[in-house]
């Protein structure tokens, strides 16, 4: 943003990068939920570059007891998973999910955006309202855009909370996604051509504009 190459200097200089790093550190530390780059920039002084500060910060915390993790387009501090054994006290007892709920969740994650009819077609049984409601309540799935087919059925997609909960950077990082796609197992949705696989996650592609940033860390 405030590259030195720019002959017109901003009215106020952005703080030094080390200082910006401290700021991002403080903001992320203070929040239990992931904070987006846009919000970081909005909260930091004018001219700050949160994305760059994040690169430094992430490097600094690599291998520490807490780590900087990416969740979709947002960032958060999380304790290192190998130290989970120290945290019995903090462990939250989660409701046991039914097999139907777990499978439905996986189908939404791998096939999103997906309609209820499609979930039922894959599972071979009807999906109870309670199952979907439970996942919605956990904020692991949410309504996506309506499908442009007769009846305009609503679709489901996974949420940022889902990514956060399972420690995923984005929906493309789902384990085995590439293999499933290669095996054609994500296809065969009604009226979908060979493009179907590519369309599995239009939401991500829309919602995550900083693909550059993603590559930055890879």
């Amino acid at each position: 943003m405030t590259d030195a190459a720019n002959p017109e200097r901003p009215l106020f200089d952005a703080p030094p990068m080390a200082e910006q790093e401290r700021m991002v550190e403080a903001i992320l530390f203070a929040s239990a939920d992931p904070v987006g780059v846009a919000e970081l920039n909005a909260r930091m002084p004018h001219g700050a570059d949160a994305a760059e500060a994040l690169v430094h910060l992430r490097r600094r915390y690599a291998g520490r007891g807490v780590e900087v993790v990416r969740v979709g387009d947002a960032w958060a501090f999380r304790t290192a998973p190998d130290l989970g054994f120290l945290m019995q006290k903090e462990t939250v007892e989660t409701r046991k999910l039914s097999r139907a709920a777990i499978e439905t969740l996986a189908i939404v994650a791998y096939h999103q955006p997906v309609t209820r009819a499609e979930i039922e077609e894959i599972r071979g049984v009807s999906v109870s309202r309670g199952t979907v409601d439970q996942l919605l309540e956990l904020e692991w799935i949410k309504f996506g855009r309506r499908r442009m087919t007769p009846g305009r059925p609503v679709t489901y997609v996974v949420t940022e909370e889902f990514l956060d909960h399972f420690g995923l950077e984005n929906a493309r990082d789902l384990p085995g996604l590439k293999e499933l796609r290669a095996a054609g197992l994500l296809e065969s949705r009604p009226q979908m051509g060979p493009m179907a696989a590519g369309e599995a996650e239009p939401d991500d592609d829309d919602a995550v504009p900083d693909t550059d940033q993603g590559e930055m860390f890879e």
Partner: protein
Amino acid sequence: MAEDTAYDNVTSVEARRAAEALIVDVDGFEGPLDLLLTLSRTQKVDLRRVSVLQLSEQYLAFIETARDLRIELAADYLVMAAWLAFLKSRLLLPPDPAEEGPSGEELAAHLAFQLERLQAMREMAARLMGRDQKGRDFFVRGVPETMARLRRVTYSATLLDLMQAYARIRTRDEFRPFVMDRDRILTLEQALDRMRPLIGFAGDWTDLSSYLPDGWTDDPGLRRSATAATFAASLQLAKEGALELRQSELYAPIQLRRRPRDD
């Protein structure tokens, strides 16, 4: 319970035990596709190479056993049985070129695909649940600082809003049919105020109409209002004992005079 009646008709212990196992199994399956997936495992091959024909026979045999034991099966199990019976006939008979629709092989391939896809989703679900999870394996900040939100509200209104608001109020008056214009109405209070000092001079019977204020007698609307108010006022004064009223006959002019003192 429906199952109970089924048990009663089964005589041998062995058959009963078999029936029990089957009930448990049918209950444990999440629909026909799940049952098919389980049956396919007995073939011990990659799902891509599963023999759909053999699978159909396994399924139909299973359903048959259930029927023999008079176990009530959900409708979708029976629908699947009918469909697999159809598929089986398609697979066994040479293809009829006149027949419309997908071939037996295509249907079988689709079924195999469905099984494979369901299997894949189950594996993915297991892998997903096996991942490190928030609140179990990794943790969020224990004391998140609540961000103080200083909200500053500015209000906007334009001159147009202001004028429209005023116009709205003023025109609303026109919508109040029961609120009459004060300057065309002689109120009871006004009439009383006018009459109180006057009645002192009315020692003799005087026509009520002579008490109407100046300028209220020509316009019929004004006269009506003034007459009504003056009459009401005179009634009030009569009640107070200040004057007397009389009327010689119906519709004759009403006359009034100061009430003579008792002394």
